């Protein structure tokens, strides 16, 4: 077990006070309205706030806020690769790293990358790789670092969107922006872009269809670059869920495009007086 000697850690056995709660946390009613006023069974994504170019040291960066979920992403590169093998000679390499800040979730996490973080990093890499023109950067490496500041549901989907925005801000050549969208299926109804409570709240009735699905989509090319689902769902539900997620991505596309155009205009030199 790797130990972290740099930080002062609390006592060995410390627990979250919510475990000692007398009455169980209120379960979100299955077919009732959603807590933040959005609709069930409709492609109702949270309004997003995106900004590019926050971190001046990084080649490209982006910050996204959707409801209470806050993430930021920095892109460094293209820079020289450390390892050189044959594939590196022909095209570039993409490395991703996704971390959760310890204060981001309801329960304190650790700074050391757990297996869930590694899993997300791998998913992020698989989703972004098809969109990048890596053959234009032989012998180089592009590094994408995502930090989740607050986890309020559908973190992976927003991380994908944020990372592709940061890559575009860094000027890395891409075929298209990659957008992420996720849904949570509960019995017969689904919720798009679930919040943390909706994601982790499994209804007491063990219905047949229960699970979550995250899709990474390239809107202009109509290609799915990332897909991940868990839980137990029928194949029809899964297919319908993928369609819903792609619709959600189409809804998000104009917002992201506008944010990117704004950042480019801001960064461009003022028109010369002639």
């Amino acid at each position: 077990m790797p130990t972290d000697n740099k930080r002062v850690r609390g006592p060995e056995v410390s627990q979250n006070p919510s475990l000692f709660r007398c009455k169980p946390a209120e379960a979100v009613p299955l077919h009732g309205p959603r807590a933040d006023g959005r609709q069930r069974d409709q492609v109702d994504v949270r309004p997003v706030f995106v900004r590019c170019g926050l971190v001046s040291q990084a080649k490209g960066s982006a910050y996204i806020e959707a409801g209470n979920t806050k993430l930021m992403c920095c892109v460094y590169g293209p820079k020289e690769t450390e390892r050189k093998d044959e594939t590196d000679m022909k095209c570039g390499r993409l490395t991703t790293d996704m971390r959760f800040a310890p204060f981001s979730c309801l329960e304190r996490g650790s700074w050391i990358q757990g297996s869930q973080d590694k899993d997300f990093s791998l998913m992020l890499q698989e989703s972004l790789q098809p969109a990048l023109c890596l053959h234009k950067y032989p012998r180089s490496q592009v590094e994408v670092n995502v930090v989740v500041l607050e986890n309020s549901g559908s973190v992976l989907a927003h991380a994908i969107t944020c990372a592709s925005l940061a890559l575009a801000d860094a000027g890395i050549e891409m075929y298209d922006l990659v957008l992420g969208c996720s849904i949570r299926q509960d019995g017969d109804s689904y919720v798009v872009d679930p919040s943390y409570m909706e994601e982790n709240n499994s209804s007491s009735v063990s219905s047949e269809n229960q699970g979550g699905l995250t899709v990474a989509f390239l809107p202009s090319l109509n290609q799915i670059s990332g897909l991940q689902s868990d839980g137990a769902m029928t194949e029809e539900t899964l297919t319908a869920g993928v369609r819903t997620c792609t619709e959600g991505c189409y809804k998000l596309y104009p917002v992201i495009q506008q944010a990117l155009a704004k950042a480019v205009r801001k960064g461009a030199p003022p028109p010369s007086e002639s």
Partner: protein
Amino acid sequence: MATVQVSEAEKVYILHGIRDDLRVDGRGCEDYRHMEIETDMVSNTDGSAKVTLGHTAVLVGVKAEIGKPRPMLPNEGYLEFFVDCSANATPEFEGRGGEELGTELSNTLYKVFNNKHSLDLKSLCISRGEHCWVLYVDVLLLQCDGNLYDAISIAIKAALFNTKIPKVHISADEEGRKEIELSDDPYDCMRINVENVPCVVTLCKVGHRHVVDATLQEKACSVASLIISVTHKGTVTCTRKVGGGSLDPESIFEMTEAGKRVGKALHAPLMALLQQEEAQGKRRQKVGFLS
């Protein structure tokens, strides 16, 4: 994943063959290679299984230990997966080389079993909030020739079927503390119901068609694959796209349908085979690792 180098001419050959539903070794696009399954080969475990799928060989050992249940789920036991890519499989896995692949495989296994229906975790509880059975499922890759997910999931299902958990009962001793007693009879044990344990099917997209059970050469020609885990009823518990390419939504729908069909068809013969092997009892000739 361990890779092989494939020349352009070989790629074209494989692609054209698959387009006409004929793979290099003569199989159809949805046929599996020759599969051999054997259980109960490692005597120190509570359950074990070895699966050989073509040239891929996977050994799974299940050990049951008594532990403390998770705080949020006090009346359920749980499973812990660990996948070890041994350096025997390919020299790439020497040292820490296989760690990345091992983490990816175990993370996917956690997702596959992350639902209420696959295993009855409540039956693994001994006393609420204090003791429960923790099943440590350890997977060892002996040989790697493509299609690791499928072989591992079949081996896990066989190993869990073979697992014999000793029966315990709790007694309170003089001071009121709980004491756990294992029954003396080695045959007095609890079996796990593996009816709903899913099997994973990997579909590789090669050209415009998809293939099941791809060899390493076929994998080198594909840009992306879809992993789908299916139960015997046809419920999908986990899907995941792997690989550095992108897929058309239409292909994804086609592939999930094919995956569900192939996966569903896998369960019945597997359970029949496992029950047949179990029924042979002491008369069974152990093949072991010699073949």
